[in-house]
């Protein structure tokens, strides 16, 4: 296994050696595109990036009523939900199955989670999507366990099981001979409570991401995102970029997917409603049914906190909160960061991590048309077999993942106390995150891998400045 891996990485060496000239010289040479170094990542919705609460600040553009609404949304986002019935009737309805008691359990300080170190680790934030083949080339929910593993439950309802993670090392080396080891996780269900999961189960791990700037991303016109797609790689740059089309939970219409690791959710409110139901066990009009399968009778007969458990206004208020979380401004941009920006540009990272986007008209007056710097095209890309979960999600294939925005990535370590990146937190630092890139990102990854150590460090400094 390890042997094969070295071969896989060696193939990369050959590719990049052919490209050859991409490595950045000590003097730089090219001008750094200005859009890589704009301080106000979130345009008018940029906030001070220096505090422990830098992911949790409201958009400075909110008016008085908007701020009040933001703070109420924050309260619903932060507080633990409890089992129904409870004296706090606004906050009951937890479960029967759940992964976390609040949004902030996983998005701690509105930030990013890391994988658990053991089943008893109280840190939440990694979940497993489950499915079996539907016989028509797609996926359907697992008949006994549904679409998501729930590792916690209310009293009297057995939890579905626990996440078991085993890792294998992948060995490689940088162009200068410096070795590195990546850690490849594999997942299975431990202590399955509803019978064997079966051999055809497909498991896709997903970790909770920082939730800043969601309203800005929602305000990028769909046509702009679609226009950047190149599904057949007509321009022959090795990067395809496809849209994932999904069903809007309220209207039932097909819309562009923007959020989630596979761009499988179309709007902020849909994201909020699906997380409430899937992760906390709170139903709403968008997601009225608890995720109990037919074989889970204790789940189906558990006491409900109402039908649905939260009204549309609460979903909208939490959606408003998430939409108006401002983006932390860039840190100090020094020469090292500028050099890293040059590496970023010359390695072609911007082919998917599109630096600038332009928002259109939004319903929320606090989000006006402007230029923002999320470093994402919001499209899904083939990231190669090592990252693949082998599980299609809508129109996103089993090897495709959405380009995650990079804004705020440098705040994760100070705010959340870790440097775990990618869709399941497998990368243990930013260098590993880059090294895991393959598929459409193979050429860019190889530029990084073969670059002199100084340039590699500069690229990481550039990322940390975001």
């Amino acid at each position, binding site marked *: 296994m390890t042997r094969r891996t070295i071969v896989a990485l060696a193939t990369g060496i050959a590719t990049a050696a052919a490209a050859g000239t991409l490595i950045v010289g000590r003097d730089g040479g090219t001008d750094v595109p200005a859009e890589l170094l704009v301080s106000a990542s979130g345009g008018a919705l940029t906030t001070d990036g220096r505090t422990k609460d830098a992911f949790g600040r409201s958009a400075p553009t909110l008016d008085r009523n908007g701020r009040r609404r933001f703070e109420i949304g924050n309260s619903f986002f932060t*507080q633990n939900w409890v089992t129904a019935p409870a004296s706090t009737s606004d*906050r009951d309805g937890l479960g029967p199955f759940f992964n976390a008691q*609040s949004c902030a359990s996983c998005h701690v300080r509105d930030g990013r989670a890391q994988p658990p170190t053991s089943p008893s680790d109280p840190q939440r934030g990694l979940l497993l999507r489950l499915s079996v083949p539907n016989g028509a080339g797609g996926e359907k929910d697992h008949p006994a366990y549904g679409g998501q593993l729930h590792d916690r439950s209310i009293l009297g309802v057995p939890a579905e099981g626990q996440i078991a993670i085993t890792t294998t090392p992948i060995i490689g080396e940088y162009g200068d001979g410096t070795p590195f080891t990546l850690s490849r996780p594999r997942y299975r269900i431990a202590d399955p409570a509803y019978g064997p999961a079966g051999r055809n189960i497909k498991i896709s791990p997903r970790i909770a991401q920082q939730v800043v700037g969601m309203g800005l991303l929602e305000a990028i016109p769909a046509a702009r995102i679609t226009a950047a797609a190149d599904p057949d790689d007509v321009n022959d740059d090795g990067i395809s970029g496809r849209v994932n089309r999904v069903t809007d939970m309220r209207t039932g219409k097909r819309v562009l997917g923007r959020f989630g690791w596979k761009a499988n959710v179309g709007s902020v409110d849909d994201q909020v409603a699906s997380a409430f139901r899937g992760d906390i066990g709170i139903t709403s009009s968008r997601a009225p049914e608890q995720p109990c399968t037919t074989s889970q009778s204790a789940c189906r007969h558990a006491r409900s906190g109402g039908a649905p458990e939260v009204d549309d206004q609460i979903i909208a208020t939490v959606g408003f909160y998430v939409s108006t979380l401002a983006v932390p401004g860039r840190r100090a941009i020094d020469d090292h960061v500028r050099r890293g920006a040059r590496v970023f540009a010359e390695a072609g990272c911007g082919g998917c991590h599109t630096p600038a986007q332009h928002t259109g008209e939004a319903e929320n007056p606090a989000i006006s048309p402007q230029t923002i710097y999320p470093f994402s095209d919001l499209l899904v890309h083939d990231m190669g077999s090592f990252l693949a979960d082998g599980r299609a999600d809508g129109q996103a294939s089993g090897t495709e993942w959405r380009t995650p925005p990079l804004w705020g990535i440098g705040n994760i370590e100070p705010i959340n106390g870790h440097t775990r990146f990618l869709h399941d937190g497998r990368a243990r630092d930013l260098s590993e995150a880059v090294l895991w890139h393959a598929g459409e990102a193979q050429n860019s990854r190889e530029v990084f891998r073969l670059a002199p150590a100084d340039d590699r460090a500069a690229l990481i400094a550039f990322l940390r400045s975001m």
Partner: protein
Amino acid sequence: MRRGNLWSRARIVVATAGIAWAPLVLGACGDDGASVSRTAVIAHYAAGVHASYSASLASATTMDAAIDAFVAAPTPAAMKAAKDAWRAARDDYGLTEVFRFYGGPIDDETTGTEGQINAWPMDEAYVDYVAGSPGAGLVNTPAALPTISGATLATLNEKGGETNIATGWHAIEFLLWGQDLSPNGPGTRPVSDYTNAPNAKRRAAYLTATSDLLMSDLTDLVAAWAPDDPKNYRATFTALPENDALRDIIVGMGELSRGELAGQRMNVAYSERSQEDEHSCFSDNTTADFVANATGVQMVYTGAYPGVEGPGISAIVAKADADLDAKIVAGLATSVANATEVPAPFDRLVRDGLPDSDPGRKAVLATIVSLEDQGDLMVDAGTALGVTVVLS
């Protein structure tokens, strides 16, 4: 001599008196030209932060001793003494919250201890038993917390959820008062929780450990702002470009006024009628917290810190725009006066069914509005000084 509640009450009086004297003093400054420099204002702020944290540490030390005495000999009188000491110490800490929101020692992105000192709202079932769940909480779960110490509690704080608060003022508060299940008074934790109730010894160990941790965190804050240490934060802060330091000072005042106090601490509970969103919900100290926070903003603006005299932000705003300064001085006094009018207990005011016309609810709303106005005025103060203040 300056100890506990007596001490902080004395200061509140001084700060309120600021309405009357501040314009006079500032008028004098205006008359004789540029007598108050920005440097002097920033230096006085640094001295004031140090004095404020020192005062907070002093009253927390008194509280810590009262807690030690209580767990050593748990009697109703000793429990009451510990609770009284908590309230007194709480007033002093409330005055310091205006030093947050710009990444200073209290909430520096990597080393800040605010979440360990004062995080809320707290899911009390994370720490100890609650009605209906006699075995809940870290106190009753040795497997989750085998060794009780400040260090182990710190690692469990905010683990698995932002309301999983294991440490700080509100953990101590809950361990002294217990759940507040009554609309007319605070929690009524029995003394037997510290004598013969299950896990009484663990509970006592928990209480003293979290009090010790609080003391240690406050000690660090005092050191970070101590004078004459070329390596501490105060040295860094006073060496900042003047406009950056002034921006930070004003951001602290604006954020505490508007987003934090008016918004999270008052309006959420007020408009959602949610006791879960009440700040010091176990002790019913919430209304005193409001007054202390609002007074802290006034203290920074006027410069009337405990035991140190010098020019506040007011002095330089008045030079730039005397009318604006007068408006701010009046606005700050209005907020403190409004907060003082909010009747305790706060949870009575956020009950379902109490009409908005209730005088208590009207007082809450009036305080929210004056604090929001005050936040807007802080942006104007920045503008008058040529400093861009962006509030979230």
